[in-house]
């Protein structure tokens, strides 16, 4: 990594010519992100400027020509021009920088001043970001708690004051900083690798970064005065850019300071892209379009400031015909597809849709009856009616109760623990979904639960989510799509949230008492142990506030990005939190729900992961996310309506089979993304097809896996297929990954073999119908579609060839269960 930074920073090897076949250049310009009236200021030897040469071709396309244009300065002795378009001041004066390519020129004036009497290097704005850029203060290096090898820095340099202590004061008299011979300072010797350094050689001794650090030492390691300007924001440019395949674009990052000045921080910023198939970004800030069409976001970070650049790489195919849009979802999805030139797949057939939507809403395969009825239905509104039927079915509530129960951490610590609390909470969730309780009410009842769990079942949430930190982090992740955990101990590295924001949220949860004593022991000689005291959640009146551990000051309850709230001592602050959260204009609540449900049905969130909606993790289709959120607010948080809207959309009905252009698309919904059935659904489906139900200890016979009230019922199948453990608020606990053990189980487990032979196979042998009819029924059961003629022929031949019909049916069922068509929702 260090090598690659060095290589990239020092020897811009990348060459980005105008692309082959480009039309002629029409115009050329030099961008710096901070040119004023055609000129640019560089103050002192520790300043620099990344420039970008942009050309526009006669067909209106932009091209980054920084690394191909010829750059020259006149007079020559004012600045040095490094490869890649990095301008370093050399002497006081004024010069004209000119870029020349293909007969076009562009120029800017550069003023260089104070080379002899340089201004102090800024510790916070220059030194610390340099240490961050080269990874010195990363969590694996000196930034980890306690530092590395007796040299500590604050994590990612979020606490420059502490860093100054570490670097300058703590090291006083040591060799870390040598004022008499700056180049012999350990700080530099280690950083360049001149002296053995476990972290390797990270900063080249000929680089401007080295010069900066050295300059700071030579100046006597000045600290920041209280009047020193601070960075108020950073701005990356271009804001957005459409790139052709293999095209490159150098980004520029400008810091705006509190005194109104600006500085180039391209060389200090860190860059990261959220979809590396669409484009890559080098440490230098050069974005290169990859091999796949789509949109990506480049996150730009400089200390506590972040910005995002949108990159679009269109496929550029003409879309001959789009299927008819059903609702606003399709309008916005298709708009994006048109922008990308990405033709969508065709509509899936009715059998595929039936199986797909039944699995997604009800967590099961369609029954034989349902399949026969639906495939015979010619009603134009049969899809809408099907969705309504499924939403009214008890399985819908069970399936989604399982989904919510897992992230609401409805679990027993030990499988031997009493089941009453988890069962009660599960029942409450299920009933809420069944009666279609508006989602804001659902959230409110959980977050404000008060009393004994027998009266208020959502009080069970507080069993696992009891500490203030857990309450902050879980509620933020569940309902606001924000991961706050980083901000507990330091400024969130990829968000605007600071510890102040964290403890503002924490304050809402400080007037809470959760009583859940361990079960009393049986007294000697007594027949039974005394009854266990019931879990109870209480509000303790008093001033709600939480202490920010860094400032040691109390913070009043404050919604994220909201106003500080005044809450009377007798009021439960949690109520105010929910009031803030569920207001129609709350920017997080409805969008988080929209994204979570979108992912459930479409296989990929508009933001991924679905509960990490950072500003640096923008949605792939922001308009669609906004529209879905607005729809949720407009319908008063009606969950069933949200599902109806998504599942009846044309987008949801698209086939999973790719066309010639969209097989790589995994983010724009140009086709349905196939995914493996969730563990519980897969087990139930195996049971349905084999006609033999799995038994769960302590539950009535016939209980389906999706009906399990909590996830502590031991089952190997569910474990290997990635059932969540309900031990965090993260949907990521559920694993849909494939593994060898899963297939060993499906192919070869004694359990499964027993199910196949005992249940359906035995029945089929006794069944007097023809093989053809029986095979068709198996296909309807397993795949919700009639068997095709060629499939029927092959399988009939197999059955007829076999000496043992029962065994032959077992083989057929085994084969069906082991296909992708079975284990995937497609």
């Amino acid at each position: 990594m260090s090598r690659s930074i060095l290589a990239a920073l020092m020897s811009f090897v990348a060459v980005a010519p105008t692309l082959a076949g480009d039309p002629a250049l029409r115009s050329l310009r030099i961008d710096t992100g901070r040119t004023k009236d055609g000129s640019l200021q560089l103050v002192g030897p520790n300043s620099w400027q990344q420039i970008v040469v942009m050309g526009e071709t006669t067909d209106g396309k932009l091209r980054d020509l920084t690394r191909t244009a010829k750059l020259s300065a006149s007079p020559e002795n004012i600045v040095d021009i490094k490869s890649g378009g990095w301008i370093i001041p050399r002497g006081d004066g004024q010069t004209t920088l000119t870029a020349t390519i293909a007969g076009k020129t562009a120029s800017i004036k550069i003023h260089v001043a104070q080379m002899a009497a340089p201004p102090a290097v800024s510790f916070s704005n220059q030194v610390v970001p340099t240490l961050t850029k080269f990874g010195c203060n990363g969590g694996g290096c000196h930034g980890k708690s306690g530092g590395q090898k007796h040299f500590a820095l604050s994590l990612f340099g979020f606490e420059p004051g502490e860093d100054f202590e570490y670097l300058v004061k703590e090291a006083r008299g040591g060799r870390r900083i040598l004022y008499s011979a700056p180049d012999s300072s350990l700080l530099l010797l280690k950083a360049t690798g001149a002296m053995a350094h476990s972290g390797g050689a990270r900063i080249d001794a000929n680089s401007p970064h080295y010069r900066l650090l050295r300059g700071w030492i030579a100046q006597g390691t000045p600290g920041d005065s209280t009047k020193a300007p601070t960075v108020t924001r950073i701005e990356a440019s271009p804001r957005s850019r459409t790139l052709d395949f293999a095209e490159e674009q150098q980004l520029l990052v400008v810091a705006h300071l509190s005194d109104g000045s600006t500085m180039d921080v391209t060389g200090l910023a860190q860059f990261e892209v959220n979809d590396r198939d669409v484009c890559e970004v080098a440490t230098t800030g050069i974005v290169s379009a990859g091999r796949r069409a789509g949109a990506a976001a480049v996150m730009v970070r400089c200390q506590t400031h972040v910005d995002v650049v949108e990159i679009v790489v269109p496929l550029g195919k003409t879309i001959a015909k789009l299927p008819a849009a059903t609702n606003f979802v399709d309008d916005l999805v298709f708009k994006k597809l048109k922008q990308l030139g990405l033709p969508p797949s065709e509509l899936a057939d009715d059998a595929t849709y039936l199986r797909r939507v039944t699995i997604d809403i009800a967590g099961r395969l369609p029954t034989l009856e349902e399949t026969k009825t639906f495939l015979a239905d010619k009603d134009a509104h049969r899809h809408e009616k099907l969705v309504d039927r499924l939403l009214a079915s008890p399985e819908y509530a069970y399936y989604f109760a399982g989904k919510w129960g897992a992230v609401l951490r409805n679990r027993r610590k030990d499988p031997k623990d009493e089941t009453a609390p988890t069962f009660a909470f599960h029942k409450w969730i299920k009933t809420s979904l069944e009666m279609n309780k508006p989602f804001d009410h659902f959230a409110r009842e959980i977050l404000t639960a008060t009393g004994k769990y027998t009266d208020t079942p959502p009080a069970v949430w507080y069993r696992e989510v009891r500490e203030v930190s857990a309450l902050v982090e879980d509620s933020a992740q569940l309902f606001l799509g924000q991961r706050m955990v980083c901000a507990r101990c330091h400024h969130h590295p990829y968000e605007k949230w600071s510890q102040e924001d964290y403890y503002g949220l924490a304050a809402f949860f400080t007037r809470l008492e959760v009583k859940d004593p361990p079960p009393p022991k049986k007294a000697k000689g007594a027949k039974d142990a005394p009854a266990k005291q019931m879990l109870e959640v209480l509000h303790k009146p008093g001033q709600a506030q939480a202490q920010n551990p860094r400032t040691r000051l109390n913070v009043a309850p404050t919604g994220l990005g909201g106003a500080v709230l005044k809450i009377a001592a007798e009021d439960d602050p949690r109520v105010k939190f929910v009031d803030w959260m569920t207001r129609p204009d709350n920017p997080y609540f409805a969008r988080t729900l929209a994204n979570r449900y979108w992912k459930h049905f479409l296989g990929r969130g508009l933001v991924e992961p679905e509960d990490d909606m950072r500003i640096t993790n923008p949605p792939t289709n922001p308009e669609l996310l906004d529209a879905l959120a607005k729809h949720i607010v407009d319908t008063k948080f009606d969950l069933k309506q949200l599902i109806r809207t998504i599942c009846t959309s044309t987008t949801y009905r698209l086939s999973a089979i790719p066309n010639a252009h969209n097989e790589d698309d995994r983010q724009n919904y140009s086709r349905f993304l196939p995914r493996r059935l969730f563990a519980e659904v897969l087990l139930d489906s195996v049971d349905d097809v084999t006609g033999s139900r799995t038994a769960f200890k302590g539950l009535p016979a016939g209980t389906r896996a999706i009906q399990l009230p909590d996830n502590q019922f031991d089952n190997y199948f569910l474990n290997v297929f990635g059932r969540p453990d309900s031990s965090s608020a993260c949907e990521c606990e559920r694993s849909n990954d494939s593994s060898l053990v899963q297939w060993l189980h499906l192919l070869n487990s004694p359990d499964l073999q027993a199910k196949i032979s005992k249940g359906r196979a035995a029945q089929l042998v006794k069944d007097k119908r023809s093989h053809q009819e029986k095979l068709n029924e198996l296909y309807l059961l397993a795949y919700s579609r009639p068997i095709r003629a060629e499939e029927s022929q092959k399988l009939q031949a197999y059955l007829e060839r076999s000496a043992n019909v029962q065994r032959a049916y077992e083989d057929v069922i085994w084969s069906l269960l082991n296909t992708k068509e079975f284990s995937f929702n497609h």
Partner: protein
Amino acid sequence: MISIFGNESTKTCSGINRREFLRVGGLALGGLSAASMLAGQASASTGSSAFKDKSVVLLFLQGGPPQIETFDPKPNQPANNRSCTGFVQTRLPGVQFGGTFPRLAQMADRLAIVRSFGSGDASHNQVPVLTGNNRMRAPMGALMARALGGNVNPRTGVPTNIVVIPEAIRPELQLGQPTGGFTIQDVLGQYIPAGSLGSNFEAFLPAGGGTLMRNLQLRMDRNRFEDRRQLLSQVDGLRRRLDSAPGDLGSLDAFQRQAHEVLLQSVASAFDISREDPRVIERYDTSRYFVMEDYHRGGPNFNNLVNQSRATNLLGKQMLLARRLCEAGAGFVTVIDSCWDFHADGNNPGVPAGMSFLGPQADHAIAAFLEDVQQRGLSDKILLIVTGEMGRTTNKGGNRGGTDHWGDLTPLLIAGGGLRMGQVIGESDRPGGRAISRPYWPVNLLTTVLHTLFDASEVRINPALLPAEIATLMNNGAPPITELFS
């Protein structure tokens, strides 16, 4: 730099993610990709011609084993510096080991000790030693699997890259969860993943116990299984239709085919040491060295030595399993022996106490392994490496003799593999804290392993014999530990 996108963000400073949960149960075996599956890649079919048909057993003494109390005992140093376990003269003139290694001392002519090896990292970070700091962050076992074109021995069906923890011997063990980077999740999170090589080359963890092992044994006669396989290939229409979008079903398909191979090749018995001659098991058995339950939850030492709660007396049997797996066709078996962390703080013992039970067990287990391997004529076929993620500071402090992490020197024992034995390589300074001869680092260990497994001169002439990234490591990487090859 931590990544802000993708899977990393599901992991927090304090949390572990779901994938790791699954690994803990021994359930996610990672990807075992059959060689045949990769037949389309030139490397798979040709890699064998550079392959010298050897296996590696890496015994990882995890926690930071002291270099002084193992193989560099410094008899002439002050009391708090020299080996606190005493000294034992080896068969090599002038060479002594720490006092808990009498059996190894007797076979020192069949060992190579490197006294100038350092992991370069003074934290419980096993990645440098496991990977030699290669760019792919792939442990050596994963690199071997990659070089052989797949993670299953095509002849025997046994996985190439395997990690053996005590639970592979006793699946029912419920070992504790030590603090600070020592939980089994933390540990396996470093050993199992294959870095950028991807999950196909992750290590197999045979510790899932019952159902998994049962599932490994084919349940029906082979003809019927073959019939089913035929049938399945005929009915899976969707796979064919979606094949053009490999991201959707691709890896799934690979796993399914691997499962077929594993089943057809009766792999399960390779993991079952009870099939060994009882006298062989007895020779390996180390259970008499200490009562491991003393260190586990509920035991008398649990409260003051919580970080010893993964200590077991099963190392001998783990080494036996490693030998058995190598014979069955495994390529790289990593055996983990935990708890070599001797701070003498509230969680760990000091050096004297820690060495008193871990040292003799290691001596016995390594010696039994080497004797067995020699009797079977496999000494040149199996390379044994014994090391840890770092060494320890030279001076023991306090009345309990605590020491801290030290990355500049790390114990390293090498045996077999056809390399030059009976030598001490390198020299440390007087206190035993730094190399005064040419230092060796994990990157040299990595190339040592590669040069043992693959014919370096063949690869130099024809790099295409191996996947490019591995050929580059051999041809342009750091030199191996040259003394072993002279």
